[in-house]
């Protein structure tokens, strides 16, 4: 698995609650090196992998065993990634809602504002907050995935079909899509607005998502932070005022259009060849009640449950289950090499450095540069 720190401890609690097992479970944290669980370089391959990039499943079918039969039916959303030729190769263990924005309601109240209902609305809110002397956004650019999540929401919001096309293409070429540049322009409008980023670009670059959360809720220097549901324990741990915590979901990009929802997951997959013990463990972990300890700690969503969460996470769970939502998986996972540290993440980081807080005048040139850079990565 790729978890560390609090998440790892929570998972240990889940394992402890499974009761007596006939076998011992050794937890192997692989960090960002998770793809090595399949690689030739893997020295002692784990039986059961909690894969944080479900987009990798279709590429590793050869290495995977089918899931044991008789598990709870998951939402059809997953079939695209996890079911091939009628065989299920993975079961989502933990779902990530990547379109969540945590904010401080007190600041909004003081400025007489409501959480934004649309993208233009959000830009207005940011301006109003900046005028009231509060930096609207704390951006965790130190974690590359925060930038890609931001971008994916915008792209999904303006061009769902293009997004879906890129996600499923064998050789995706994002830079060829005019909507790619359009999404960059929209995103750039927010990031380049003077006074929008807490601490400016330099500060954003050294912030990981917990730092950004502490800026908003601990040191109270900013109003909002884009962070998934799993940020919940960090928010609660560091909030100066536990009651002053709010959450809204990514607004629609145009009034009336559906709001984008980007989904990620840690998916359980079994490596070939597997054992009965490993199958048994999957069965136990897939039971909806198994994850109770983690849900109690917060920062955990699963698509087989709608209840038991904090009010904020309940809303996220309901949005994930609601029909007709604009739901899509994390694009950067599915772009493979193009989406990783040297691909989209790098492009967006450089884009942010070029425009952050500098006003809309620098936008056209920066968008062109970013598209060019993406084209270079595509080769």
């Amino acid at each position, binding site marked *: 698995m790729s978890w560390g720190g609090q998440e790892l401890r929570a998972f240990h609690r889940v394992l402890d609650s499974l009761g007596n097992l006939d076998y011992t479970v050794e937890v192997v944290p*692989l960090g960002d*090196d998770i793809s090595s669980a399949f690689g030739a370089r893997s*020295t002692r391959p784990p039986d059961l992998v909690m894969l944080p990039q479900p987009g990798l499943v279709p590429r590793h079918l050869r290495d995977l065993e089918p899931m044991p039969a008789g598990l709870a039916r998951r939402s059809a959303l997953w079939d695209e990634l996890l079911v091939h030729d009628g065989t299920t190769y993975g079961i989502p263990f933990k779902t990530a809602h990547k379109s969540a924005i945590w904010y401080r309601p007190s600041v909004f109240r003081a400025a007489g504002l409501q959480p934004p209902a649309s993208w233009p609305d959000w830009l207005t809110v940011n301006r109003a907050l900046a005028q009231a002397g509060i930096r609207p956004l704390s951006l965790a650019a130190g974690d590359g995935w925060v930038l890609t999540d931001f971008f994916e929401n915008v792209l999904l919001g303006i061009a769902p079909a293009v997004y879906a096309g890129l996600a499923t293409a064998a050789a995706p070429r994002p830079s060829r899509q005019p909507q790619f540049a359009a999404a960059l322009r929209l995103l750039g409008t927010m990031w380049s607005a003077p006074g929008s980023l807490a601490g400016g670009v330099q500060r954003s670059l*050294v912030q990981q998502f917990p730092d950004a959360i502490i800026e908003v809720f601990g040191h109270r220097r900013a109003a909002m932070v884009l962070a998934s549901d799993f940020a919940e324990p960090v928010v609660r741990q560091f909030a100066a005022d536990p009651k002053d915590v709010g959450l809204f979901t990514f607004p629609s990009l145009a009034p009336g259009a559906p709001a984008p929802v980007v989904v990620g997951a840690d998916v359980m997959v079994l490596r070939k060849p597997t054992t009965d013990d490993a199958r048994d463990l999957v069965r136990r972990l897939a039971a909806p009640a198994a994850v109770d300890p983690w849900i109690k700690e917060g920062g955990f969503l699963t698509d087989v449950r709608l209840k038991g969460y904090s009010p904020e996470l309940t809303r996220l769970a309901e949005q994930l289950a609601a029909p007709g939502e604009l739901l899509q998986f994390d694009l950067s996972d599915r772009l493979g090499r193009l989406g990783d540290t040297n691909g989209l993440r790098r492009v967006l980081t450089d884009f942010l450095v070029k425009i952050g807080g500098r006003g809309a005048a620098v936008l056209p040139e920066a968008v062109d540069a970013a598209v060019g850079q993406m084209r270079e990565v595509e080769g």
Partner: protein
Amino acid sequence: MELQTNGLTLEVVGREVSGRPVPGRPRRPAGPYLLGLPALLLSCVLLIPIGVTVVTAFRTPDGFGFGNFAVMGDPAALHAVRNSLLWVLVAFGLVVVGFFLALLSYRLPGLTPFLQPALVVPFAVSVLVSGVTFRLLFDPAPERGTVTAVWSALFGSSPVWLGPGLFWLVLVSAFGWTWLGYVVSLFRAGLDAIPDDVTRTIAAEGVTGWRRLWALEIPLLRPITGVVTLTVVVAAVRVFDLVLIAVPGPMQQSADVLGLNWWRATTSGDPAGRTAALGVVLFAIVAAVGLIGVRGLRRRRWAMPVPVARQDAALGRPKPSKRARRIGWTAGVVVSLVWIFPAVVLVATALHSPRAAGLRGWWSPSGLGLSSFADAANAGLLRALLSTALIATAATAVLLAIAVPTAYLVAWGGLPAWLGRVVMSVFVVLAVTPVQMYAAPLRDAIGAAGLAGSRVALALVHAAAGLPFAVLLLRSAFAAAPPALVSEALQGSARQSAVLATVQRTYRPALIAVAVLEFSMVWNDFIVGFLISGPGTTPLSLVLWGEARQFAASSGTVAAAAVVASVVPVVLLLSFWSTVVRGLTTGSKP
């Protein structure tokens, strides 16, 4: 001699025999060669994978050639090479600074008692820990980061120290913090060993100031300068974990060094030939530095004298004036405080709860307690401590058992001169070989042998990696024992016990130095565990690394884990430091 026969008297005259009495070469007993066998076997743990890497680097789809080295045309790789060379400059700068600090402490004797422990502690902790410490110090939030807080208080606002460009300051300070103590201690030992009559002669001739430096200290310290420069430069070229832990994600690319570039290439699935070529280039740089350094050492005219009898203190240097002592004392206190400060920050952060450490700096009085330590214990720290202790002990034991007979063989085993030279050169090159050179094939081999995650395998790799340095050091010590004394002891013409006591006095520091350095090096290791061991061995550094991935949220836990991880090496090195320095410097004959 007279012979009489058949009435003749013959005079027989003898003459000195010249030339060999028996044709052929002198017979050398083969027995001692067996002493080198274990070392040969252990070295194969490194030599074979190194060979595999070299072959992979030169193998192209159509035969052998330099095709894979086209990877060096890659701008990212070139950038990494440039950064690695910058690190070499940093190392040279550090040696110069360390030299002058040692000179200062020599001229102002009051300084030493304070300076020594303050300088040793950073050397004892792992690179990972010093990276963590400096990341805490330079944290961008004025509530948490000491430097940012002080700067903001003085000038209103503070630059983002970990940001683009400025992260170099953090990296170089962390590196300097770690290594300066080693540099100063070794130079200081060299200065102390300069015979008083030489100093007095120079003084009587009226040579002072810079001229004295050029005439006396610099030439006499040349051998030690060689050893120091070699160690620090090799450490600088090998910088790896420091960048990984101290530099935030978006700046990682501009901080890239060759070793890291290699690692990124391996994990992103680049062809084996290209990554092997990167490893070979890194190796070539380090080996060149190593061999040049050793050649420099050979051209010296003066060796560290071995003190056979303790000097009479009354005959030592004249006592410095009261004023000099007072200045020395003050300077000592100030420098020591500055130097020990990062360690204080680390311990104080660890003594705050995770919440308090994430929100406020180490100076904050709220949230004091041991809950960060409890959190670290929950993260598997205790198991990792045990695991690390086992690995480090096993590696040290294996190393001593193999290095001592080998060093004896090389020093006195009667190896033909050419073979001795070859063996020493191989060990010098092996001693500086970067892990990247053997990591990939070794990892595959360990996996194929079903030994992945085995502590024994990891301990063996550590012992093999430590062997070259240990043999070089022990051989110097063995060779430095005055041969006359040794033969007298063996033939019984002097009182054996007294002589043996002298001999033993020359060996013991080197033995202790090898054992202490190997143990703490294995204890503090990150890169071997990270690149070679499979999951399951869980050395300390990997636990620390895992916790540090979300730095701010877990800074209390990370600091606590770092403190726990550092206790053993700090205690070990503090208690044995003077012996270790003696072991490192005594008769270091290359």
